[in-house]
C-alpha cells in the first residue's frame, strides 16, 4: 500500500510493465531514490556500483569515454540506464547528470532476479524480430482479454428451434436445415433438453433408429445455458467445464438462441465475415456505400486488437478489390466491357493500403472494344469510386485518364516508350505497374503486359542499378550514435514513408524484378527472395517485421489524424510514442540502413546520390 508510488512509477517503464504485480512489489522494495547535482557523475560499474537506474526527473548523458566526450545517448524521465554495463554488453560507458536528476536505483541482484521472467529478459537480449513478436503478442493478449470481457449478446447466435420430444428424426432434421442450426431445444413434459445433429447421427447410425422414430431417446439433459448479459469468458469456461460446444442463451427465463464455440473463438475475424456477406449481397451503389463504412470500422477494430498490419492490409485490400469489381459489374449493366481488364496498382496492387489514401488504377482493354463508350463508362466509374470514398489520385493515375486507359497494344507500346525515354516520373510509372494486380476482367492481359516490361529490363543491363538508386534517395532518420533525427516541429515528427517504408518496398521491388518474382506484396516478395537465396532467412524476416512495425506506426498515426479530422500523411509524432516504440523505431531504422547497404553493394552503387 505505502509504496504504491514506486509501483506506479515502475509500471510505466518498459519492460517493467510486463512484470506481474507480485514481482513489481518485490522489486520496489529493493529500490532507493538518489539525487545527483548537475555535472555529477553517476556511480555505475559492474564491480563497485552495480545498479540499474530509472530516471524520475532530470536527464543523464551516456558517454563513451571518461572525460564526458563522445556523448551518445540521453536518458530522460521514465528511461532506464545501466543494463548494458550490468550485462557486460558494454563496459566503457560513463554517465553524468546533465541537469539535476532524481533517479531510482535498483541493485544488480534484484535486476538479475527479474531477468528470470522471459518477457522481461526478452527486452534486453532479443533482437528486433523477437522484440516485435512479443510486442504484437502482448497487444493480442491484452485485446483478447478485452473481447472476452464483452457480453454474450454481442456474439452471433444461432436461431432457437424448440421441438417436442415426440417429434420424428426426419422433422427434426428438416427443422435444423430450415433454421441453419444444428442444435434444438426439446420439451418433454416439463423437462427441457438439447438435441444436436451428432446425437441424431449416432441415433441413426449406431442405435438403429429410423427416420420416423421420435427424438426423445437421443436428447441430453439438462440444458446448459448462459445469460445474454454474462461475460464471454464465462461462456468459454462453461463450455470447457461441461465439455459441450454449444450453450443455450437465456434472456431472463426464456431461451433466445444458441452460442457455438466456433463463433465464440473466431469473434475477431467475424467482423470481416460480416462485411464479406454484405458485399456479396450488394445490388446497388448505395449498398456498397455501407460496405466502405464497415471496412473502415473493421480496420480500426483490428488495429486496436493488435492484429499485424500486413494481415489487416491483405484483408482490407481483398475487400476493396471485391468492392471495386462489384461496382464495375453493377455499373456495366449491359455487360459491354467484359473484355476490359481493370487493374489496381501501387500500394493497392501490393495489398498494402490500409487507409484509402488514393486510387491508382488503370484499364487494359481488348483492341476490339469501342474506346469512346469505354471512356464514358470509365469516367462514370471513377466518379462513383470517389463517391464511395476512394480519394482521386493527385497524379491522375486513374481510369478516367486516357493515358491509363489503353488497348493492350497501345499499353505495351507505352511501356516500351517509358524505357526508351526514361525520366523520374516514368520510373515511378514502371514501379506502380510492376505492383499491379487485376481486379476485374481477364488477368492474362496484365500478365502479358508485365512480360513486355520484364523483357525490356532483361535487354537493358544498366537499367536495374539506375532503377534502384531511389532506394537511397532519402536519408534514414537516425544519427551516428543511434538517436532519432526528427523534424523540428512541435511533435518532433518523422516521415515514416521516406525514412523506412519506401526504401524497403522499392529495394524489394527491384530485387523481385531482377529475380523474376511475380508476386506483388512486399512480404511475399521477401519470402520468394529468401527462397532464391538472395539473402538469408534471418535478414528477410527482420526486414519483413521492420516493414510491419513501420506500417503499424503509420496506420496508428493515420487513424489518429483521421479521428481528429486532420489531413492524412505519413508522419508520426515521436513525442507520442512510448519508450518501447522509440527504441523499436531506432532498431527498425538500423535494419533499414543495413538493407540500404545491401542494395548499394548488390547494385554496385557508389554511396548515395
Amino acid at each position, binding site marked *: *500500500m*505505502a*509504496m*504504491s*508510488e*514506486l509501483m*506506479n512509477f515502475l509500471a510505466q517503464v518498459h519492460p517493467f510493465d510486463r512484470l506481474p504485480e507480485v514481482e513489481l512489489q518485490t522489486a*520496489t*522494495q*529493493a*529500490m*532507493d*531514490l*538518489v*539525487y*545527483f*547535482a548537475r555535472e555529477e557523475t553517476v556511480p555505475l560499474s559492474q564491480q563497485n556500483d552495480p545498479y540499474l537506474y530509472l530516471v*524520475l*526527473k532530470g536527464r543523464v548523458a551516456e558517454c563513451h569515454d571518461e572525460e564526458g566526450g563522445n556523448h551518445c545517448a540521453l536518458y530522460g524521465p521514465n528511461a532506464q540506464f545501466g543494463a548494458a554495463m550490468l550485462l557486460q554488453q558494454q563496459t566503457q560507458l560513463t554517465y553524468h547528470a546533465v541537469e*539535476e536528476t*532524481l533517479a*531510482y*536505483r535498483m541493485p544488480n541482484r534484484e535486476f538479475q532476479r527479474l531477468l528470470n521472467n522471459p518477457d522481461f529478459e526478452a527486452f534486453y537480449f532479443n533482437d528486433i524480430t523477437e522484440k516485435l513478436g512479443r510486442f504484437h503478442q502482448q497487444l493480442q493478449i491484452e485485446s483478447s482479454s478485452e473481447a472476452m470481457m464483452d457480453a454474450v449478446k454481442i456474439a452471433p447466435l444461432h436461431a432457437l428451434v424448440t421441438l417436442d420430444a415426440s417429434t420424428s428424426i426426419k422433422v427434426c432434421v428438416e427443422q435444423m436445415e430450415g433454421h441453419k442450426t444444428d442444435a434444438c431445444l426439446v420439451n418433454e413434459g416439463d423437462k427441457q433438453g438439447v438435441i444436436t445433429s451428432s446425437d441424431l447421427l449416432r441415433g441413426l447410425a449406431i442405435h438403429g433408429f429410423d427416420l420416423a422414430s421420435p427424438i426423445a431417446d437421443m436428447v441430453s439433459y439438462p440444458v446448459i445455458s448462459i445469460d445474454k448479459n454474462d461475460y464471454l469468458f464465462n461462456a468459454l469456461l462453461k463450455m470447457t467445464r461441461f465439455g459441450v460446444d454449444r450453450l443455450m442463451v437465456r434472456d431472463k427465463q426464456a431461451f433466445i438462441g444458441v452460442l457455438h464455440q466456433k463463433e465464440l473463438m473466431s469473434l475477431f475475424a467475424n467482423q470481416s465475415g460480416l462485411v464479406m456477406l454484405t458485399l456479396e449481397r450488394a445490388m446497388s451503389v448505395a449498398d456498397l456505400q455501407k460496405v466502405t463504412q464497415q471496412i473502415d470500422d473493421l480496420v480500426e477494430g483490428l488495429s486496436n486488437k493488435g492484429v499485424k498490419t500486413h494481415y489487416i492490409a491483405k484483408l482490407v485490400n481483398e475487400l476493396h478489390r471485391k468492392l471495386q469489381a462489384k461496382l464495375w459489374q453493377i455499373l456495366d449493366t449491359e455487360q459491354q466491357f467484359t473484355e476490359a481488364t481493370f487493374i489496381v496498382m501501387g500500394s493497392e496492387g501490393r495489398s498494402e493500403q490500409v487507409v484509402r489514401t488514393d486510387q491508382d488504377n488503370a484499364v487494359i482493354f481488348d483492341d476490339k472494344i469501342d474506346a469512346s463508350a469505354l471512356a464514358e463508362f470509365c469516367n462514370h466509374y471513377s466518379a462513383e469510386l470517389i463517391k464511395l470514398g476512394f480519394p482521386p489520385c493527385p497524379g491522375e493515375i486513374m481510369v478516367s485518364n486516357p493515358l491509363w486507359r489503353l488497348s493492350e497494344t497501345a499499353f505495351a507500346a507505352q511501356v516500351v516508350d517509358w524505357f526508351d525515354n526514361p525520366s523520374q516520373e516514368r520510373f515511378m510509372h514502371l514501379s506502380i505497374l510492376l505492383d499491379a494486380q487485376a481486379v476485374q476482367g481477364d488477368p492474362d492481359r496484365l500478365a502479358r503486359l508485365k512480360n513486355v516490361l520484364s523483357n525490356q529490363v532483361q535487354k537493358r543491363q544498366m537499367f536495374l542499378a539506375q532503377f534502384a538508386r531511389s532506394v537511397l534517395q532519402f536519408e534514414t532518420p537516425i544519427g551516428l550514435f543511434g538517436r532519432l533525427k526528427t523534424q523540428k516541429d512541435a511533435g518532433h515528427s518523422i516521415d515514416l514513408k521516406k525514412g523506412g517504408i519506401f526504401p524497403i518496398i522499392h529495394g524489394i521491388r527491384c530485387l523481385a524484378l531482377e529475380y523474376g518474382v511475380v508476386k506483388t506484396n512486399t512480404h511475399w516478395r521477401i519470402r520468394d527472395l529468401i527462397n532464391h537465396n538472395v539473402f538469408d532467412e534471418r535478414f528477410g524476416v527482420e526486414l519483413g517485421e521492420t516493414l510491419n512495425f513501420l506500417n503499424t506506426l503509420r496506420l496508428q498515426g493515420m487513424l489518429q489524424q483521421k479521428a481528429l479530422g486532420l489531413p492524412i500523411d505519413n508522419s508520426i509524432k515521436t513525442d507520442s510514442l512510448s519508450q518501447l516504440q522509440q527504441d523499436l523505431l531506432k532498431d527498425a531504422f538500423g535494419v533499414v540502413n543495413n538493407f540500404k547497404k545491401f542494395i548499394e553493394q548488390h547494385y554496385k552503387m557508389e554511396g548515395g546520390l
Partner: protein
Amino acid sequence: MLPFKLPRSIQQAWLKHRLKNKAYEFLFAPTVDNEVVCFDCETTGLDPKQDKIVTLSAIKIRGREILTSESLNLQFRQYCDINPESIVIHQLRNMDVTVGLDERDAIDQFLKFVGSRSLVGYYLTFDVSMVNAIVKPWLGIGLPNAQIDVAELYHQHFYQDWLQPDHEVFDLSFQALLEQLNLPSLGQHDAFNDALMTAMIYVKLQSIRD
C-alpha cells in the same frame, strides 16, 4: 519545560536520566554519520491531544541517497472513528484501518528504526508531538533526537527580507517548496509519498547548501 535552553549534551543527559525504560537507551547512542530519518504521519485530525496516528512512514537518508528500500511503513489500529475531513485528505476510510498495529508496538518499531539519528520532516513539530503523545506516558520522555524541519531550512535559505513584498506571506506550502526546488509532486498524499517528497526536499536543500 525549562525556562531556558540547555546545551544539547546536558539536555540529552537529563533526558537519558529520566528515561523510564533502559531498553531504549539506544536512542542516546552516538549518531551514525550522515544518516538521518525522514518521517511523516497521517492522523485522524490535527489535535495531538485527541487525535491519533493512522499511518506512519519513515525513510532513511544517507548522504544524497534516499533509501526507500530501508523504509518503514506502519499502520496503526484505530479504536475511534476518523474525522471525515481527514479521510478526504489521506483517503483512508474507517474500514481501511480496522487492521494494524497497537500504537506502542508500532512506535517501538519506529524507535528501533530511528535509533539516535536526527529526524527530518515538514512542520516536524506536529508529527513529533503526535509520536510524543504515545512515547511520553510510556517512557517518561519525548523523542530525544535532533530535529530538522525542511520548512525551516527552506526559509533560512530562501527568505530574504528585502525581497519579500509587504503584506505577502512567504509561501512555505508543501507544493511551493516542491515547485521552487523543481521536484516532482507524487500523486496521492499518503505517509510514504509525503515522507519521500520531504526527503527529496531535504536532499536538495543539503546539496544547495554544500
